[in-house]
C-alpha cells in the first residue's frame, strides 16, 4: 500500500502537536548541554509549517516537504533550523512530483535528508547529534524492508532504532554543536536534536499505525 500525500500532511500536523507537547522537554535537554532553545525553536518552526498549510492544497509530497523545509530554514534559526530545513528540502527533492510513494522511496528521501545534514553540519555519526538517531533509523528501515517486513512492522523497527540511537547519545562526548564546548561535561546528557529526530520517527510510525487500523 503506497504512502499518500494526505499521510504526509497528517504527519506534519501530528508532528507539530508532538513537538509542542515536547517543547519544555526538548528545551530542558538543551539547557543541560546547550542554550535552552531547541524545543522553542522546533515548535516555532512547525507552527510556521502549519501556517503554510493552505498552500499545500493539491500539491505533491515533494513540493510540500520542500515548502516545509523552507519554512524551517526561515523561522527556526540556530543549528536546528538549517539542518532540519535542509533535511526536509532534500527529502522533498527526492520525492519531487510524487502524490504517492513507497517505503523504498521513503528510504531514498531519508538518505537524501541525512546526507544534507551531514554536508551542511560537516558531521558524522558518533558526535552526539541528531545524526545518531537518524542514521541507525534509516539502517533499520532498510534492513526491515530487505527482510520483507510489513510497513507498520518496518516503521516499528525504525522507531526503535531511532530511540536506541537517541539513548546512545547519553554517554557520548559531544563533538559538534554547542554541546561540544562542554567537553567531558557533555557526558551523561541526551542530545536534544537526537531526541527531536526520534520524536519525528515515532510520529511517522503513529501515522502508519492509524493507517493500518
Amino acid at each position, binding site marked *: 500500500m503506497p504512502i499518500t500525500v494526505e499521510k504526509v500532511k497528517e504527519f506534519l500536523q501530528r508532528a507539530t502537536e508532538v513537538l509542542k507537547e515536547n517543547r519544555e522537554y526538548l528545551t530542558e535537554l538543551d539547557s543541560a548541554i546547550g542554550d535552552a532553545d531547541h524545543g522553542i525553536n522546533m515548535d516555532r518552526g512547525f507552527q510556521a509549517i502549519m501556517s503554510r498549510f493552505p498552500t499545500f492544497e493539491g500539491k505533491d509530497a515533494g513540493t510540500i516537504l520542500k515548502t516545509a523545509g523552507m519554512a524551517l530554514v526561515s523561522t527556526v534559526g540556530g543549528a536546528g533550523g538549517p*539542518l532540519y530545513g535542509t533535511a526536509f528540502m532534500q527529502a522533498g527533492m527526492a520525492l519531487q512530483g510524487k502524490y504517492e510513494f513507497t517505503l523504498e522511496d521513503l528510504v531514498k528521501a531519508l538518505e537524501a535528508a541525512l546526507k544534507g545534514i551531514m554536508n*551542511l553540519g560537516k558531521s558524522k555519526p558518533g558526535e552526539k547529534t541528531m545524526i545518531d538517531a537518524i542514521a541507525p533509523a534509516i539502517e533499520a528501515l532498510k534492513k526491515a524492508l530487505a527482510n520483507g517486513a510489513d510497513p507498520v512492522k518496518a516503521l516499528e523497527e525504525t522507531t526503535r532504532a531511532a530511540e536506541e540511537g537517541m539513548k546512545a547519545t547519553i554517554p557520548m562526548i559531544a563533538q559538534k554543536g554547542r554541546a561540544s564546548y562542554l567537553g567531558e561535561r557533555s557526558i551523561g546528557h541526551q542530545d536534544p536534536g537526537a531526541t527531536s529526530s526520534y520524536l519525528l520517527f515515532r510520529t511517522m510510525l503513529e501515522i502508519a499505525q492509524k493507517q493500518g487500523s
Partner: protein
Amino acid sequence: MKKLINKPEDVVKEELEGLALAYPDMIKVHFDPNFVYRADAPVKGKVAVISGGGSGHEPMHGGFVGMGMLDAACPGQVFTSPTPDQMLEAAKTVHGGAGILYIVKNYSGDIMNFEMAADMARAEGIRVLSVIIDDDVAVKDSLYTQGRRGVGTTVLAEKIVGAAAEKGYELKRLAALCTKVNLNGRSMGMALTPCTVPMAGKPTFQLAEDEMEIGIGIHGEPGRERMKLKTADEITEMLALSIIDDPPYRRTHRIFDEEKGEWVDVDLESPPFKPGDKVLAFVNSMGGTPLIELPIIYRKLHEICNKKGLKIVRNLIGPYITSLEMQGCSITLLRMDEEMIELWDAPVRTPGLRWKA
C-alpha cells in the same frame, strides 16, 4: 522569571520597535524578516558590513549599526542564530554596489545560516565574503569541537572593519583586515550567575552561592569548569593568563573562493602574544554586573599586562556583548598595529558605541 517584558515571544520584536523609535537618525528597522540597518543605507560605493546572531547580547549587534560601524545587523530570537532570509534581505537593502562582508561568530547555527544566506545573495548577483570570528580561548582544541566560539573580538572587529569600510576599503581588503583582527584577538569569560531566556522561563544552569563558571560563552550555556568563587584579582588573573599564555591556535575555516566560485577550506593560525605587543584591552560586562566592578577588573588586567610586557594602547570597558542579566565578565585582548589603532580611533555613531560624531 522577573523581566521587564510583555510576552516572552514578543521580546525581540518590541525591542526592535523601541530601537527604531529611539534612534531614527541612526538606524531603521525592517520586520519580517527582521534586521536593523543604517538610516542612510545604501551608502553608494561602500562595502556594506553586516553581522548578526542571536538576540540577548545587546548592544551587540543592533546597537552597533550606524556610521563607522555596521550597515546592518540581523537579530535572531534570544540566543538563537538568525535565519538566512534575514541576512539575504539585509544584504539586498544595504548593498551599495561594492559588495557585502558578513561578520559571523563561530557557532554551528550562525555559520550554517550565514553560509546559506551568502549562497542566496550570490545567486542574486551580490558579491559576498564572510569572515568568521573565533576568539574564545576557553575552547582548547578545534579538532573535537566546533572550534572556538566568537565572543568579545566580534565587537572590536565590527568597529575596526566598519571604520575601514567607511574609509573606502574594497571588499577583499576589508575581509583580510577582518581576518587580521580575528587572528590577533583572544577572549575568555566567566559568570557569577546564570541568565534566563524569556521563552524558556528558567535559568539555563544553576550555581551555588559560592560557585562560579569559568570559560562560559555568551549564550547562557554552562562553561568549561565550575569552581569556588574567587576574588576579582584572582579571576582577572585566570582570564588574562589564559589569554596571554595561549599557544598558537590553528584551525580550518571554510571561506568562499571568488576565483573558483566555491567554498574552500583554509588553514589559519593565531600567533600568541609576546612582550612588546601593543594591545587593546576590553573588559566586558556580561550584562548584570554592577558597573563599579569593571574598573576593578581593569586595574588588575593593567597590572598583569604590564608585567607580561604588553602595552595597553586602547581600551573599552562596559557591557557591549552581554548575556541578558548574567553577572560576570569577559576579557578580550587584541594585538593592535598602527592601521588598527587609526581605525579604532575613527568616528563612530551608533546607539551602542559613539565618539567623534
